[in-house]
């Protein structure tokens, strides 16, 4: 068994869905997904992939941890089948995404992790596609009192230490920390592998624990430090001058002229 890894994976409405599938309900200050399925937050998939690579190289047991109002079992199953060993689901009406902020989410996840019994490494995504916050990982590490490294493009474990290639705006740096530690993972790490049908079938037999709000001993109400007071759809549309010509080459030349005339270039 050896190394114990927990991967925090949030279910979010598919962020690749078209803008029309994100209905902005201003009065309830909520985004209501329309006709798009939940998926694992893409960066959390990267985190899971990082965990599986560590498992392949040094051996590890991986627990997928997800907190939400009602979690799609099919989505969990597919993720677990990619290479996890168990799942821990924290579910209940109290966990409506729009009622939680980064701080209450981190407290709830920390409580769930304490229940999970030991860990050596916690992996999170760099940010969730719905909150776009990038806070929960660092918050969790602070609450648990463990070191945290953000924005990993590569994660390796050796001799009780984690070694991370951390993405920088102009390149990357290498940072190490002693375990137990928390690492947030960026898209550069690489996509999560697809599970085989056989693996999906086998994953149904893997241990799954489901906890409710009462099991955690943490009441999310009153924990939030950030309140959403308004929500609106972004206004981005401009009026586009389409440059037309008989051939594409001519259109390209004409575009240059128009931009010159309008003193844009």
């Amino acid at each position, binding site marked *: 068994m050896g190394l114990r890894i927990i991967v925090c994976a949030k279910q979010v409405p598919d*962020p690749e869905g078209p*803008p029309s599938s994100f209905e*902005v309900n201003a009065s309830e200050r909520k*985004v209501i997904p329309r006709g798009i399925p939940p998926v694992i937050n893409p*960066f959390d998939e990267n985190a899971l992939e990082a965990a599986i690579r560590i498992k392949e190289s040094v051996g590890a047991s991986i627990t997928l941890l997800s907190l939400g109002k009602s979690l799609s079992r099919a989505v969990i199953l597919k993720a677990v089948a990619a290479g996890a060993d168990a799942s821990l689901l924290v579910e209940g009406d109290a966990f409506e995404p729009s009622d939680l*902020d*980064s*701080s209450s989410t*981190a407290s709830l996840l920390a409580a769930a992790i304490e229940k999970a019994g030991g860990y050596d490494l916690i992996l999170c995504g760099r940010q969730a596609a*719905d909150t*776009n*916050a*990038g*806070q929960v990982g*660092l*918050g969790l590490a*602070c*609450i648990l009192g463990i070191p945290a*490294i*953000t924005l990993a*493009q590569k994660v390796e474990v050796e001799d009780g230490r984690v*070694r991370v290639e951390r993405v*920088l705006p*102009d*390149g990357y*740096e*290498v*940072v*190490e*920390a002693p375990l137990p530690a928390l690492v947030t993972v960026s*898209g550069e790490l690489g996509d999560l592998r697809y599970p085989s049908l056989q693996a999906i079938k086998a994953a149904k037999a893997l241990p799954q624990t489901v906890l409710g709000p009462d099991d955690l001993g943490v009441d999310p109400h009153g924990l*939030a*430090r*950030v*309140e*959403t*007071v308004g*929500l*609106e*759809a*972004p206004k*981005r*549309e*401009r009026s*586009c*001058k*389409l*440059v*037309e010509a008989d051939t*594409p*080459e*001519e*259109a*390209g030349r004409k*575009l*240059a*002229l128009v*931009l010159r005339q309008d003193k*844009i*270039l």
Partner: protein
Amino acid sequence: MEGSGSVVILAETAESGAPAAISLELLGLGRDLADGLGADLSAVILGSGMGDAARELAARGADEVIQLEHASLSTYNPELYQEAMLGLLKSFTPRVLLAGHTAMGQDLLPRLAFSLSCGLVTDCVGARVEGGQILFVRPVYGGNALATQRVTTATAMATVRARVGEAKAPTATPGEVKVIEASFAAPVRLEPKGRETLEDRECPLEEAPVVVSGGRGMGGEEGFALLRELASLLGGAVGASRPPVDSGWAPSTCQVGITGKVVAPDIYIAVAISGSTQHLSGMSEAGKIVAINKDPDAYIFKVSDYGVVGDWKQVLPAFTAALREAAPEQGGARWA
């Protein structure tokens, strides 16, 4: 306590050692908030030998600049910066602490906020005072919605995007600079082991006046050579949507969007990019947007000022050639 209730900005320096553009913008935004709240504006800068930068900040609108000095702060180290800031924040409680939504701000502010049990709002595209409260505006759901948020704790923290604040002209009477030697309470656990620079810092994407970006429709590395040619003709930089980065046609330092760089050049030229919300989040504040795409229904045309419907393989070489011919007298500012 002096400084309590004030607006504090966390400054950074550029490669040159001068305050980074984002820090001057934060001073501008911080001044507006401070005026709205009737509070003072302070700047904090961490590092080693930061005197010049601190004086510059004091000349650019800060009532007070705290220069938090230590040899070990010369480059960003999360835990050392965290400890140094926590030490400083023992002595006063700001009303708000603003940092750039930069590599440092994104990493440091959550650490500070959770250590001090403060509310934090990241990636803000706006901040204003209304009815004595600070309201922050930020994209959520990949930019499909904009949320207005407020922080309920005594100190609010926020990271703010580039070009949200507006730098102000130097003031007649500069603020006061206070030098404080940083101290570290907790032992450091993170160990930096060196760094690798990949991007050409000649023309950093975020500062380029012109950005020429390619998308999935470029089909490979070869197309990016043409984009580079156009960018260098215009004195700009090359960007990309995510698929070319994922496919290795462009380095990851080129990615523009919600998980890449946020740019606001005078001109953004989007070639073979469809205009996903995630991409638009990183460039929709550009002065003028020009799109080349073979699909007349591509969403990018809805958010552009100029467009050509066509295959870039035909449009782009002709466009670049015509621009080169039509180039004004050599040495024109943008044509250098």
